C-alpha cells in the first residue's frame, strides 16, 4: 500500500498519522502540502489528519475543504480511491461532501480529550475488516466539534446501508446523533471518524485498540 497524508496549515496530527501508517501498515507515506494541485501517482490511500486546519476559522474544515489539493482528493475518491479522515479530517470530508452530515460543537460546549469505548458496527469495510462487528475498541477522542448530525433520511440511509462504522459504546460524550463516531461513503472506501486510531497503536500509548484499522487497510490494499 502507498499512502499520502495531506498537510494543511494547522494540521497537528499529520506526523502521528504518518507514523501509524508506517509502523502498523508498513506503508510508504508521502506528506503532501495543501497548495499542491495533484496527488502523487500510484496512491492507494489518502489520509486527512487531525488538527485545526486554518485555525478552525469560519467553520472546522471549511477552508481546508477549498484548498487546491482537495479537488484532487475528491477526484481520487470519485475514482474509487480510499480516503481516511480523522477528527479534523472527518470535518473536512463532510465539508467537501465526500461524506454526508456535519460535525457541530460538542454538547457540553467544551473541548473533550479522553479515551472512549467504541463499538465497531461493521467489519465489511477496508478500514474495519480486522474487527468483528460488535467488538469494542478503546480509542482517544480530542475535539471541540464532534457532535455528528445528519437529517433523518440520511441517517436512515447510513444505517440501512450498514455505513455507520463506529458508535460510542457508552453513549456519545459529544452529543452525536445515534452515538455515531464514524461513517463510511456509499462505496465504503471513504471513512471519517472523530476518535484518533493513530493515538492507540503502540503499547506506549496505553493500548493498541486503534491498530486493527491500519491492519485492515494493509490487508485490503496489499495487492493494489
Amino acid at each position, binding site marked *: 500500500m502507498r499512502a499520502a497524508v495531506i498537510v494543511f496549515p494547522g494540521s497537528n496530527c499529520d506526523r502521528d498519522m504518518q507514523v501509524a501508517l508506517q509502523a502498523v501498515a508498513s506503508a510508504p507515506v508521502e506528506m503532501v502540502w495543501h*497548495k499542491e494541485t495533484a496527488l502523487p501517482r500510484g496512491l492507494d490511500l489518502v489520509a486527512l489528519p487531525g488538527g485545526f486546519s486554518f*485555525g478552525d476559522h469560519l467553520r472546522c474544515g471549511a477552508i481546508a475543504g477549498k484548498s487546491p489539493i482537495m479537488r484532487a482528493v475528491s477526484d481520487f475518491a470519485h475514482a474509487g480511491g480510499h480516503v481516511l479522515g480523522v477528527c479534523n479530517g472527518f470535518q473536512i470530508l463532510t465539508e467537501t461532501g465526500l461524506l454526508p452530515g456535519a460535525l457541530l460543537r460538542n454538547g457540553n460546549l467544551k473541548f473533550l480529550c479522553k479515551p472512549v469505548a467504541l463499538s465497531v458496527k461493521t467489519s465489511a469495510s477496508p478500514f474495519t475488516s480486522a474487527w468483528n462487528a460488535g467488538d469494542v475498541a478503546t480509542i482517544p477522542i480530542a475535539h471541540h466539534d464532534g457532535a455528528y448530525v445528519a437529517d433523518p433520511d440520511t441517517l436512515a440511509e447510513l444505517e440501512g446501508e450498514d455505513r455507520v462504522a463506529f458508535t460510542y459504546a457508552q453513549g456519545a460524550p459529544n452529543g452525536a446523533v445515534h452515538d455515531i463516531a464514524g461513517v463510511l461513503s456509499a462505496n465504503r472506501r471513504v471513512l471519517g471518524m472523530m476518535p484518533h486510531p493513530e493515538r492507540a497503536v503502540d503499547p506506549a*500509548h496505553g493500548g493498541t485498540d486503534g491498530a486493527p484499522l491500519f491492519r485492515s487497510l494493509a490487508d485490503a490494499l496489499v495487492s493494489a
Partner: protein
Amino acid sequence: MSAEPAVTQALAADHGLTAEEYQRILDLIGRTPSWTELGIFSAMWNEHCSYKSSKKWLRTLPTEGPQVICGPGENAGVVDIGDGDAVIFKMESHNHPSYIEPHQGAATGVGGILRDVFTMGARPMAAMNALSFGRPEHPKTKRLVAGVVEGIGSYGNCFGVPNVGGEVRFHAGYDGNCLVNAFAAGIAKADAIFYSAASGVGMPVVYLGAKTGRDGVGGATMASAEFGEGAEEKRPTVQVGDPFTEKRLLEACLELMASGAVISIQDMGAAGLTCSAVEMGDKGGLGIELDLDAVPQRETHMTAYEMMLSESQERMLMVLKPSMEAEARAIFDKWDLDFAIVGKTIAEDRFLVKLAGEVKADLPLAALSGTAPEYDRPWEPTPASPKVADMPACADPAADLLALLGRPNFCSRAWVWEQYDHTVGADTARGPGSDAAVVRVHGTKKALAFSSDVTPRYCFADPVEGGKQAVAECFRNLSATGARPLATTDNMNFGNPEKPRIMGQFVGCIQGIGEACKALDMPIVSGNVSLYNETDGQAIQPTPTIAAVGLLEDLSQAIPMAGRRGDVLILLGETSGWLDRSAWLYELHGREEGPPPPVDLAAERAAGELVRALKAAGLLSAAHDLSDGGLAVAAAEMALASGCGATIAGAPKGMAPGAWFFGEDQARYLLACPAQSAMAALDAAAKAGVPARQIGTLEGDAVILGGRPAPLAALREAHSGGFARMMGA
C-alpha cells in the same frame, strides 16, 4: 496624527518609573528623553523585564552541572539527555493578564512559553500549567477557572502540544490575584540550538510572524504593579492570542533554522520589539537600527511609541545571513506569514529607531539593559510558627479521607485536563493525574518525566523549608515514575517586594530552593519572577512554583502508579506524624498553624535513588509519592488507580491515628510489591539506610485505615465528582 505628549517626571511616574529612575535616565542620556524613549526605558526597566528586585538573589541559585548545556539568561534552559539530544524548557507566569481577562491572558501565557522553547530550535513536546485560584466560593473564582482552563486549552490544543500535567489549587490568598504559570518543554539536537546574541555588522534584522497592532501596549508595566480598584480598565493591555499563527510560526521557524539562514533569533514577548532588539544587540555587543516603516502593521497610524511597546503575539525577530534572504523569504511565503527586513546590526553601541524618516529614539543600547536599576531591597525573615499545642483528634480516619478527597484541593482534576489535548503527538505514555507525566522522546525509546510542585502554605509559614519542600516534592514525583531528575525551572510568584516581609519570603524561598537543587543535583536552568501579586494591599501566598524534568533512558523503566491485587504495600521513609501546617488540619479543621515539616535532603535523595534501584531490580509493581494528605491520601490514590481496595495497618504504638494517616513527613513513598518480592525490597531498603515497613496489602474493595473502611466506590465518587460539583456543572 496627534502630537506626542511632553515628557515630564509625572509622565515617567505614569510609566511606573520612580523619581530616582527618571533622574537616572536624564543622567544617562544628558537630555530629556523623547516619548518613545521614555516608553523604551519603562519597558526595559520595569520589574517584569529587568528583575531589578530579584537579580541579587537569583544569582545565588545553583545553575551548573555536567548535564546543563545552557542555564538561565536565554529564552529557556537547555539540558543534555544523551545521544546528541537536548531538552529545552522553561516556566513563565501570566498572572496579571489572566486575572484581568482569563481566556486571553492564559492563552497568551501558553503561547509565550511555547515561543520561548521553539525560538531556540526545539519542537515542543509537552506543556504543563500550575494554576492558583481564590476560594471556590469567592464570586470571581468560577469565572476565572472556566476562562483560564478554556484559554489554555484553546491555545495548546490548536498549536498541537500535549498538555500533560500541572497543578490547580484554591486558597483565599489568591482571591484578588490568580496565578497562571505555564511550562513548556521541547526537543532539539544538542548541536543545533539557536541563541539570541546577534553577530556581524550590517546584518539584516528581520521581523517574522504576525502583524503588529496596538494590543498589549504597556503590558509588562501593568504586570509590574499591584492591582487596586479599576483593574478591569487595564483589559486593553492584555494581548490577544492566535494559536493558528503560532503553529505556522513554529513550522516556518524550524524550517528556517534547518535551512541555515539564521544567525540569531529571539521571540517578541514582554515589551515586544523593544526587548527583543535590545537583547539581541546587547548579547552580541552590537547596536541595532530599526526602520519602523517596514514593520508589518495591523492598524493604521501607529506611533513609534506604540510599535515599540506593542505586545502583539506570535512575532519573532531574527538576524539573517544575508546570502540566504531568498530562501528564508520563500519559507515564510509558504506558511503565509510576514517576513520583513526592518533594520540592521551596527557597530556602534546605539539603539536607533526611525519612523517616516524621523529619529524617534537614539539611545546607548548596552546601557538600556546594562544600567537597569538593581535593588537590594530590605527584607525581614518570616517569624517561626509555634507548634500546634491543641492538635485535634481524628476519630475516624476513613471518614476524614472521604471528606478530604472530595475537597476542591484534592478531588480529581479531570474536569480541567479533559479540556486539554494530552495525547496529541502520540508520544504521551502517562498523562495528567499521576505523580509525573511521562512523554516519549519522539522516535526513540527514551522518555522524559515532568512534574510541577509547590506547597504555598508551607512557604508562608517558613519560606526556607517551603522552598526546599517544593524542589523535594518535584524530585519525589519524578522518582516515583522511575525517572532520574535532571534539572529545574522556577516560577517565583510573590507580592510587593517593596514590603520587607514579602521580600523576606522571596529571599527565604530562594535560599531553600538553592539548597535543595544543590543537594538533589537538579540545577535551575531557567525561570521567571512575578512580583506585585497583590490587590488592595493583600498579597498572595508565597508561591515559588518548581517544575522539573527527569530522564527515563528506556520507557520500559517507568514505574506505574497502579499496583496489582495482592501486592504488598511498603511505606518508605521516616514517619513522625507531622500534622502541623498539614492539609488535613487546614481542609478539615480550617486551621493554618504550626511549622511545616522539615525537609531532610539527604534522606530525600536516598529514598529517591532507592525507588529507582528497586525498579531496576524488578521488585516493584507501583510507586506513589506521599505529600499533601499523607499516607491516607496516597493509599486512596493508588487504590483508585489500581481499581482495587487497600488495607493499611493502624498507627504504631504511641502515634495518634491522625498523625499516622494524615501526617506530612517528607521523603516518603508508598510502594506496591508482588508478595514474593517484599522481603527483598525491605532488605534493600535496610542496606540503603532508608526506613521501610510493610504496612498493608492491595485487596478487597475498600480502603481500610486501621480497621475503618472507606468503600472504593464512595472514594471514587467523592474524588471524580468533586471538581464538577464545585463548578456547579
